[in-house]
Protein backbone atom coordinates (compact mmCIF):
# COMPACT_ATOMS: atom_id res chain seq x y z
CA UNK A 1 0.00 0.00 0.00
CA UNK A 2 2.83 2.30 0.87
CA UNK A 3 4.51 1.53 -2.47
CA UNK A 4 1.36 2.47 -4.34
CA UNK A 5 1.03 5.77 -2.55
CA UNK A 6 4.67 6.60 -3.22
CA UNK A 7 4.19 5.79 -6.88
CA UNK A 8 1.09 7.97 -6.93
CA UNK A 9 2.97 10.82 -5.35
CA UNK A 10 5.62 10.51 -8.07
CA UNK A 11 3.04 10.78 -10.83
CA UNK A 12 1.45 13.90 -9.35
CA UNK A 13 2.58 17.06 -11.09
CA UNK A 14 4.80 19.13 -8.94
CA UNK A 15 3.18 22.45 -8.18
CA UNK A 16 5.86 23.59 -5.81
CA UNK A 17 7.84 26.47 -7.23
CA UNK A 18 10.77 27.54 -5.15
CA UNK A 19 11.12 30.79 -7.07
CA UNK A 20 7.56 31.81 -6.32
CA UNK A 21 8.11 31.15 -2.63
CA UNK A 22 11.21 33.32 -2.68
CA UNK A 23 9.39 36.05 -4.56
CA UNK A 24 6.54 35.98 -2.06
CA UNK A 25 8.95 36.22 0.82
CA UNK A 26 10.75 39.11 -0.82
CA UNK A 27 7.52 40.96 -1.41
CA UNK A 28 6.51 40.28 2.18
CA UNK A 29 9.58 42.18 3.33
CA UNK A 30 12.28 39.55 3.59
CA UNK A 31 14.72 41.24 1.20
CA UNK A 32 17.54 38.91 2.08
CA UNK A 33 16.06 36.17 -0.05
CA UNK A 34 16.87 38.20 -3.14
CA UNK A 35 20.46 37.05 -2.86
CA UNK A 36 19.25 33.50 -3.41
CA UNK A 37 17.46 34.48 -6.60
CA UNK A 38 20.51 36.43 -7.69
CA UNK A 39 22.88 33.52 -7.09
CA UNK A 40 20.55 31.08 -8.79
CA UNK A 41 20.11 33.06 -11.99
CA UNK A 42 23.29 35.08 -12.28
CA UNK A 43 24.91 32.70 -14.79
CA UNK A 44 21.87 32.53 -17.00
CA UNK A 45 21.26 36.23 -17.02
CA UNK A 46 24.93 36.79 -17.70
CA UNK A 47 24.76 34.39 -20.65
CA UNK A 48 21.87 36.28 -22.17
CA UNK A 49 23.51 39.65 -21.65
CA UNK A 50 26.82 38.49 -23.03
CA UNK A 51 25.24 36.87 -26.04
CA UNK A 52 23.51 40.12 -26.90
CA UNK A 53 26.23 42.57 -25.88
CA UNK A 54 29.17 40.40 -26.98
CA UNK A 55 31.36 41.87 -24.30
CA UNK A 56 32.21 40.41 -20.89
CA UNK A 57 32.48 43.67 -18.97
CA UNK A 58 29.40 45.21 -20.52
CA UNK A 59 27.54 42.01 -19.81
CA UNK A 60 28.63 42.04 -16.16
CA UNK A 61 27.46 45.63 -15.83
CA UNK A 62 24.21 44.82 -17.55
CA UNK A 63 23.58 41.92 -15.19
CA UNK A 64 23.83 44.26 -12.21
CA UNK A 65 21.40 46.65 -13.84
CA UNK A 66 19.02 43.84 -14.70
CA UNK A 67 18.94 42.56 -11.13
CA UNK A 68 18.53 46.10 -9.87
CA UNK A 69 15.46 46.44 -12.07
CA UNK A 70 14.14 43.12 -10.83
CA UNK A 71 14.76 44.15 -7.23
CA UNK A 72 12.81 47.36 -7.69
CA UNK A 73 10.00 46.04 -9.83
CA UNK A 74 9.46 42.53 -8.57
CA UNK A 75 5.96 43.56 -7.57
CA UNK A 76 5.10 43.79 -11.27
CA UNK A 77 5.72 40.06 -11.74
CA UNK A 78 2.19 38.82 -12.36
CA UNK A 79 2.90 35.10 -11.81
CA UNK A 80 1.28 34.12 -15.10
CA UNK A 81 4.59 32.70 -16.23
CA UNK A 82 7.51 31.29 -14.37
CA UNK A 83 9.75 33.72 -12.58
CA UNK A 84 12.70 32.64 -14.72
CA UNK A 85 10.82 33.48 -17.93
CA UNK A 86 9.92 36.92 -16.60
CA UNK A 87 13.51 37.45 -15.52
CA UNK A 88 14.84 36.43 -18.93
CA UNK A 89 12.44 38.80 -20.63
CA UNK A 90 13.73 41.64 -18.49
CA UNK A 91 17.28 40.54 -19.28
CA UNK A 92 16.66 40.40 -23.02
CA UNK A 93 14.96 43.80 -23.16
CA UNK A 94 17.54 45.52 -21.02
CA UNK A 95 20.44 43.95 -22.92
CA UNK A 96 18.96 45.00 -26.26
CA UNK A 97 18.62 48.55 -24.95
CA UNK A 98 22.19 48.52 -23.74
CA UNK A 99 23.39 47.13 -27.06
CA UNK A 100 21.65 49.92 -28.94
CA UNK A 101 23.11 52.48 -26.58
CA UNK A 102 26.62 51.02 -26.83
CA UNK A 103 26.62 50.61 -30.58
CA UNK A 104 27.61 54.20 -31.22
CA UNK A 105 30.12 54.12 -28.39
CA UNK A 106 31.78 50.94 -29.63
CA UNK A 107 32.12 52.34 -33.12
CA UNK A 108 33.96 55.33 -31.77
CA UNK A 109 36.28 53.04 -29.81
CA UNK A 110 36.94 50.98 -32.91
CA UNK A 111 37.94 54.08 -34.83
CA UNK A 112 40.31 55.14 -32.06
CA UNK A 113 41.89 51.74 -31.80
CA UNK A 114 42.18 51.20 -35.51
CA UNK A 115 45.97 51.25 -35.21
CA UNK A 116 45.94 47.55 -34.36
CA UNK A 117 46.71 47.84 -30.69
CA UNK A 118 43.58 46.00 -29.67
CA UNK A 119 44.06 43.37 -27.04
CA UNK A 120 41.33 40.80 -27.46
CA UNK A 121 40.06 39.59 -24.13
CA UNK A 122 38.05 36.80 -25.74
CA UNK A 123 39.43 33.29 -25.50
CA UNK A 124 41.13 32.03 -28.57
CA UNK A 125 38.74 29.11 -28.85
CA UNK A 126 36.06 31.42 -30.16
CA UNK A 127 35.64 31.75 -33.88
CA UNK A 128 36.39 35.37 -34.86
CA UNK A 129 34.16 35.04 -37.90
CA UNK A 130 31.22 34.11 -35.68
CA UNK A 131 31.93 37.01 -33.40
CA UNK A 132 32.28 39.44 -36.30
CA UNK A 133 29.07 38.21 -37.89
CA UNK A 134 27.20 38.51 -34.61
CA UNK A 135 28.48 42.01 -34.08
CA UNK A 136 26.98 43.06 -37.39
CA UNK A 137 23.58 41.69 -36.50
CA UNK A 138 20.76 43.54 -34.83
CA UNK A 139 20.51 43.06 -31.04
CA UNK A 140 17.09 41.42 -31.42
CA UNK A 141 18.53 38.78 -33.75
CA UNK A 142 21.44 38.22 -31.41
CA UNK A 143 18.99 37.78 -28.54
CA UNK A 144 17.13 35.06 -30.42
CA UNK A 145 20.28 33.21 -31.44
CA UNK A 146 21.62 33.48 -27.91
CA UNK A 147 18.48 32.08 -26.36
CA UNK A 148 18.26 29.31 -28.96
CA UNK A 149 21.88 28.13 -29.04
CA UNK A 150 22.17 28.41 -25.30
CA UNK A 151 20.23 25.13 -25.40
CA UNK A 152 18.61 25.62 -22.05
CA UNK A 153 15.22 27.01 -22.99
CA UNK A 154 12.31 25.50 -24.82
CA UNK A 155 10.88 27.28 -27.82
CA UNK A 156 7.92 28.30 -25.66
CA UNK A 157 10.23 29.90 -23.13
CA UNK A 158 12.20 31.60 -25.88
CA UNK A 159 8.98 33.00 -27.29
CA UNK A 160 7.93 34.31 -23.89
CA UNK A 161 11.35 35.80 -23.32
CA UNK A 162 11.17 37.81 -26.52
CA UNK A 163 7.48 38.56 -25.98
CA UNK A 164 5.91 36.82 -28.96
CA UNK A 165 4.16 33.57 -29.75
CA UNK A 166 5.89 30.32 -30.67
CA UNK A 167 5.24 30.56 -34.41
CA UNK A 168 6.54 34.10 -34.55
CA UNK A 169 9.58 33.04 -32.58
CA UNK A 170 10.24 30.22 -35.06
CA UNK A 171 9.96 32.58 -38.01
CA UNK A 172 12.15 35.19 -36.42
CA UNK A 173 14.69 32.59 -35.45
CA UNK A 174 14.87 31.22 -38.99
CA UNK A 175 15.41 34.69 -40.40
CA UNK A 176 18.02 35.52 -37.79
CA UNK A 177 19.86 32.34 -38.63
CA UNK A 178 19.79 33.15 -42.32
CA UNK A 179 21.12 36.64 -41.67
CA UNK A 180 23.84 35.19 -39.55
CA UNK A 181 24.78 32.76 -42.32
CA UNK A 182 24.97 35.55 -44.86
CA UNK A 183 27.20 37.64 -42.60
CA UNK A 184 29.33 34.64 -41.73
CA UNK A 185 29.88 33.90 -45.40
CA UNK A 186 30.83 37.51 -45.98
CA UNK A 187 33.40 37.20 -43.23
CA UNK A 188 34.76 34.09 -44.86
CA UNK A 189 35.09 35.85 -48.16
Amino acid at each position, binding site marked *: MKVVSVAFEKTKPSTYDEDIVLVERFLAGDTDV*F*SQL*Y*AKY*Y*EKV*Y*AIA*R*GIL*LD*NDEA*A*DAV*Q*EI*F*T*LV*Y*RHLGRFDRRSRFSTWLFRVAV*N*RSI*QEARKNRHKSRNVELNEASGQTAP*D*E*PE*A*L*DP*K*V*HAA*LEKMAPQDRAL*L*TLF*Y*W*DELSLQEIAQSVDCNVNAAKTRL*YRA*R*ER*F*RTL*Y*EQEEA
Partner: protein
Amino acid sequence: MKGLPPEVDRLMWAVAENPTPTALDEFGQRYPQYRSEMLRRMEMVKGLRSEVRPQQAGHRSEIPKFQMREVSPSGPPRGVFLVAGLSIAAIAAASYTAFSGMRTPPARPKVAFVPRVNEELPKAPPIYYRNPSPPPPTPQPVEPTAVAEQTPQYLKPRSFHVRNASLMDALSLVTANTGIHLEAGPGFVNQSVTVDYDNVDTVSILRDMAKQFGFHISDEGGGNFLAIPVPDEPNGALNAEHVPKPSQTPDTETRTGTRIATPQSSFR
Protein backbone atom coordinates in the same frame (compact mmCIF):
# COMPACT_ATOMS: atom_id res chain seq x y z
CA MET B 1 25.13 29.46 -50.26
CA LYS B 2 22.47 30.79 -52.56
CA GLY B 3 19.83 28.88 -54.48
CA LEU B 4 19.31 26.37 -51.70
CA PRO B 5 15.76 25.01 -51.47
CA PRO B 6 14.17 26.16 -48.21
CA GLU B 7 13.35 22.64 -47.06
CA VAL B 8 16.97 21.57 -47.57
CA ASP B 9 18.10 24.70 -45.81
CA ARG B 10 15.94 23.93 -42.79
CA LEU B 11 17.06 20.33 -42.83
CA MET B 12 20.70 21.40 -42.87
CA TRP B 13 20.19 23.64 -39.85
CA ALA B 14 18.42 20.83 -38.02
CA VAL B 15 21.19 18.33 -38.76
CA ALA B 16 23.90 20.86 -37.91
CA GLU B 17 22.27 21.49 -34.56
CA ASN B 18 22.04 17.77 -33.79
CA PRO B 19 24.88 16.22 -35.78
CA THR B 20 24.39 12.56 -34.96
CA PRO B 21 26.36 10.18 -37.20
CA THR B 22 23.15 8.64 -38.51
CA ALA B 23 21.68 12.02 -39.46
CA LEU B 24 24.91 13.06 -41.16
CA ASP B 25 25.12 9.80 -43.11
CA GLU B 26 21.54 10.04 -44.29
CA PHE B 27 21.97 13.64 -45.31
CA GLY B 28 25.20 12.86 -47.15
CA GLN B 29 23.55 10.02 -49.06
CA ARG B 30 20.51 12.09 -49.98
CA TYR B 31 22.28 15.36 -50.78
CA PRO B 32 25.89 14.61 -51.61
CA GLN B 33 26.21 17.94 -53.42
CA TYR B 34 25.60 19.84 -50.16
CA ARG B 35 28.18 17.99 -48.09
CA SER B 36 30.61 20.91 -47.90
CA GLU B 37 27.77 23.31 -47.04
CA MET B 38 26.72 20.93 -44.30
CA LEU B 39 30.19 21.02 -42.79
CA ARG B 40 30.16 24.79 -42.87
CA ARG B 41 26.79 24.87 -41.11
CA MET B 42 28.13 22.63 -38.40
CA GLU B 43 31.04 24.99 -37.97
CA MET B 44 28.66 27.94 -37.68
CA VAL B 45 26.50 26.23 -35.07
CA LYS B 46 29.55 25.18 -33.09
CA GLY B 47 30.83 28.74 -33.18
CA LEU B 48 27.47 30.14 -32.13
CA ARG B 49 27.22 27.75 -29.19
CA SER B 50 30.73 28.62 -28.10
CA GLU B 51 29.88 32.29 -28.32
CA VAL B 52 26.70 32.19 -26.28
CA ARG B 53 27.64 29.68 -23.63
CA PRO B 54 29.26 31.40 -20.70
CA GLN B 55 31.49 28.47 -19.82
CA GLN B 56 33.32 28.94 -23.09
CA ALA B 57 33.01 32.67 -23.39
CA GLY B 58 35.62 33.77 -20.89
CA HIS B 59 33.13 33.99 -18.08
CA ARG B 60 34.48 34.54 -14.58
CA SER B 61 33.83 31.55 -12.35
CA GLU B 62 32.93 33.50 -9.22
CA ILE B 63 29.66 35.36 -8.94
CA PRO B 64 30.18 39.03 -8.09
CA LYS B 65 28.26 40.53 -5.25
CA PHE B 66 24.98 42.16 -6.16
CA GLN B 67 25.26 45.93 -6.25
CA MET B 68 22.29 48.17 -6.68
CA ARG B 69 22.84 50.41 -9.64
CA GLU B 70 21.39 53.65 -10.79
CA VAL B 71 19.51 52.39 -13.79
CA SER B 72 19.40 54.89 -16.57
CA PRO B 73 16.05 55.34 -18.28
CA SER B 74 15.56 52.89 -21.06
CA GLY B 75 14.50 55.30 -23.76
CA PRO B 76 15.19 58.88 -24.65
CA PRO B 77 13.81 61.45 -22.20
CA ARG B 78 10.24 62.57 -22.55
CA GLY B 79 11.35 66.06 -23.46
CA VAL B 80 12.78 64.70 -26.69
CA PHE B 81 9.42 63.27 -27.66
CA LEU B 82 7.68 66.51 -26.73
CA VAL B 83 10.02 68.64 -28.78
CA ALA B 84 9.86 66.23 -31.69
CA GLY B 85 6.07 66.18 -31.58
CA LEU B 86 5.80 69.94 -31.45
CA SER B 87 8.25 70.29 -34.32
CA ILE B 88 6.30 67.87 -36.45
CA ALA B 89 3.05 69.67 -35.64
CA ALA B 90 4.59 73.04 -36.51
CA ILE B 91 5.95 71.74 -39.80
CA ALA B 92 2.61 70.18 -40.64
CA ALA B 93 0.75 73.41 -39.86
CA ALA B 94 3.17 75.49 -41.88
CA SER B 95 2.95 73.11 -44.83
CA TYR B 96 -0.81 73.16 -44.72
CA THR B 97 -0.94 76.94 -44.56
CA ALA B 98 1.51 77.33 -47.42
CA PHE B 99 -0.23 74.75 -49.53
CA SER B 100 -3.71 76.14 -48.95
CA GLY B 101 -2.42 79.64 -49.78
CA MET B 102 -0.99 78.48 -53.07
CA ARG B 103 -3.96 76.44 -54.05
CA THR B 104 -6.59 78.24 -56.12
CA PRO B 105 -10.17 77.21 -55.74
CA PRO B 106 -11.19 74.81 -58.47
CA ALA B 107 -13.16 76.38 -61.28
CA ARG B 108 -16.77 75.46 -61.12
CA PRO B 109 -18.18 73.93 -64.26
CA LYS B 110 -20.35 76.34 -66.13
CA VAL B 111 -23.62 74.56 -66.19
CA ALA B 112 -26.72 76.59 -66.77
CA PHE B 113 -29.51 75.88 -64.37
CA VAL B 114 -32.47 74.61 -66.20
CA PRO B 115 -35.63 74.21 -64.18
CA ARG B 116 -37.19 70.88 -64.79
CA VAL B 117 -40.71 72.16 -64.98
CA ASN B 118 -42.02 70.53 -68.08
CA GLU B 119 -40.04 67.42 -67.80
CA GLU B 120 -42.23 64.43 -68.12
CA LEU B 121 -42.29 62.23 -65.13
CA PRO B 122 -42.35 58.51 -65.64
CA LYS B 123 -45.87 57.37 -65.90
CA ALA B 124 -47.27 54.58 -63.84
CA PRO B 125 -48.36 51.53 -65.78
CA PRO B 126 -52.07 51.30 -66.43
CA ILE B 127 -54.17 49.40 -63.91
CA TYR B 128 -56.22 46.55 -65.17
CA TYR B 129 -59.11 45.66 -62.94
CA ARG B 130 -60.30 42.12 -62.68
CA ASN B 131 -63.76 43.27 -61.74
CA PRO B 132 -65.71 44.18 -64.92
CA SER B 133 -67.31 47.17 -63.26
CA PRO B 134 -64.90 50.09 -63.01
CA PRO B 135 -64.19 51.51 -59.59
CA PRO B 136 -66.22 54.49 -58.49
CA PRO B 137 -64.65 57.74 -59.56
CA THR B 138 -62.87 59.47 -56.79
CA PRO B 139 -63.94 63.06 -56.21
CA GLN B 140 -61.52 65.42 -57.80
CA PRO B 141 -60.26 68.06 -55.40
CA VAL B 142 -61.25 71.56 -56.33
CA GLU B 143 -58.26 73.64 -57.02
CA PRO B 144 -58.02 76.76 -54.88
CA THR B 145 -57.28 78.85 -57.95
CA ALA B 146 -60.68 77.92 -59.37
CA VAL B 147 -62.44 79.09 -56.21
CA ALA B 148 -60.53 82.32 -56.29
CA GLU B 149 -61.53 82.91 -59.87
CA GLN B 150 -65.24 82.49 -59.06
CA THR B 151 -65.09 85.14 -56.29
CA PRO B 152 -65.79 88.70 -57.56
CA GLN B 153 -62.91 91.05 -57.35
CA TYR B 154 -64.72 93.40 -54.98
CA LEU B 155 -65.16 90.61 -52.44
CA LYS B 156 -61.47 89.75 -52.27
CA PRO B 157 -59.62 91.20 -49.33
CA ARG B 158 -57.19 93.93 -50.12
CA SER B 159 -55.35 96.83 -48.57
CA PHE B 160 -56.32 100.40 -49.21
CA HIS B 161 -54.56 103.48 -47.93
CA VAL B 162 -55.35 107.05 -48.85
CA ARG B 163 -54.10 110.17 -47.18
CA ASN B 164 -55.52 113.63 -47.51
CA ALA B 165 -57.58 112.88 -50.56
CA SER B 166 -60.98 114.10 -51.45
CA LEU B 167 -63.83 111.75 -50.65
CA MET B 168 -64.81 111.38 -54.30
CA ASP B 169 -61.28 110.58 -55.31
CA ALA B 170 -61.01 108.08 -52.49
CA LEU B 171 -64.23 106.37 -53.60
CA SER B 172 -63.02 106.30 -57.19
CA LEU B 173 -59.78 104.77 -56.10
CA VAL B 174 -61.33 102.17 -53.87
CA THR B 175 -63.68 100.97 -56.60
CA ALA B 176 -61.17 101.12 -59.41
CA ASN B 177 -60.44 97.75 -61.06
CA THR B 178 -62.79 95.94 -58.70
CA GLY B 179 -65.75 95.54 -60.96
CA ILE B 180 -67.85 97.97 -58.90
CA HIS B 181 -69.69 100.74 -60.61
CA LEU B 182 -70.30 103.42 -57.98
CA GLU B 183 -72.66 106.19 -58.65
CA ALA B 184 -72.70 109.16 -56.31
CA GLY B 185 -75.97 110.90 -55.60
CA PRO B 186 -76.43 114.69 -55.55
CA GLY B 187 -75.41 116.77 -52.58
CA PHE B 188 -72.18 114.96 -51.86
CA VAL B 189 -69.71 117.00 -49.83
CA ASN B 190 -66.28 116.47 -51.23
CA GLN B 191 -64.31 116.45 -48.02
CA SER B 192 -60.69 115.49 -47.40
CA VAL B 193 -60.32 112.03 -45.96
CA THR B 194 -57.62 109.65 -44.75
CA VAL B 195 -58.37 105.97 -44.61
CA ASP B 196 -56.28 102.90 -43.91
CA TYR B 197 -57.59 99.39 -44.48
CA ASP B 198 -55.74 96.15 -44.43
CA ASN B 199 -57.09 92.86 -45.63
CA VAL B 200 -60.64 94.07 -46.15
CA ASP B 201 -62.83 93.51 -49.19
CA THR B 202 -64.00 96.51 -51.22
CA VAL B 203 -67.66 96.34 -50.24
CA SER B 204 -66.76 96.40 -46.54
CA ILE B 205 -64.49 99.34 -47.16
CA LEU B 206 -67.33 101.21 -48.89
CA ARG B 207 -69.77 100.43 -46.10
CA ASP B 208 -67.29 101.54 -43.46
CA MET B 209 -66.47 104.72 -45.29
CA ALA B 210 -70.19 105.42 -45.63
CA LYS B 211 -70.61 104.95 -41.94
CA GLN B 212 -67.76 107.30 -41.13
CA PHE B 213 -68.25 110.00 -43.70
CA GLY B 214 -72.01 110.31 -43.61
CA PHE B 215 -73.45 108.68 -46.70
CA HIS B 216 -75.38 105.59 -47.49
CA ILE B 217 -74.30 102.76 -49.74
CA SER B 218 -76.96 100.92 -51.62
CA ASP B 219 -76.22 97.70 -53.43
CA GLU B 220 -78.07 97.74 -56.72
CA GLY B 221 -76.88 94.33 -57.79
CA GLY B 222 -74.46 93.24 -60.47
CA GLY B 223 -71.66 95.28 -58.95
CA ASN B 224 -73.60 98.53 -59.11
CA PHE B 225 -73.61 100.62 -55.96
CA LEU B 226 -75.18 103.90 -55.16
CA ALA B 227 -73.71 106.41 -52.72
CA ILE B 228 -76.32 108.74 -51.29
CA PRO B 229 -75.46 111.48 -48.80
CA VAL B 230 -77.42 111.37 -45.57
CA PRO B 231 -78.93 114.83 -45.01
CA ASP B 232 -80.20 114.36 -41.45
CA GLU B 233 -76.78 113.94 -39.81
CA PRO B 234 -75.56 117.38 -39.02
CA ASN B 235 -72.56 116.27 -36.98
CA GLY B 236 -71.51 113.45 -39.30
CA ALA B 237 -70.09 114.06 -42.70
CA LEU B 238 -70.33 117.81 -42.58
CA ASN B 239 -68.61 118.28 -39.26
CA ALA B 240 -65.00 119.10 -39.95
CA GLU B 241 -64.19 118.69 -36.27
CA HIS B 242 -65.33 115.11 -36.22
CA VAL B 243 -62.96 112.68 -34.62
CA PRO B 244 -63.94 109.03 -34.70
CA LYS B 245 -64.68 107.62 -31.28
CA PRO B 246 -63.18 104.35 -30.27
CA SER B 247 -66.59 102.73 -30.51
CA GLN B 248 -66.84 103.91 -34.08
CA THR B 249 -63.69 102.18 -35.03
CA PRO B 250 -64.73 99.37 -37.32
CA ASP B 251 -63.69 96.19 -35.73
CA THR B 252 -65.93 93.86 -37.53
CA GLU B 253 -64.94 90.70 -39.28
CA THR B 254 -64.93 90.27 -42.98
CA ARG B 255 -66.73 87.51 -44.77
CA THR B 256 -63.57 85.54 -44.96
CA GLY B 257 -63.12 85.85 -41.25
CA THR B 258 -60.20 88.18 -41.46
CA ARG B 259 -60.14 90.86 -38.84
CA ILE B 260 -60.20 94.36 -40.15
CA ALA B 261 -57.20 96.37 -39.31
CA THR B 262 -57.88 99.51 -37.35
CA PRO B 263 -58.77 102.17 -39.88
CA GLN B 264 -57.59 105.67 -39.24
CA SER B 265 -59.84 108.26 -40.61
CA SER B 266 -60.23 111.94 -40.04
CA PHE B 267 -61.77 114.97 -41.56
CA ARG B 268 -59.51 117.68 -42.63
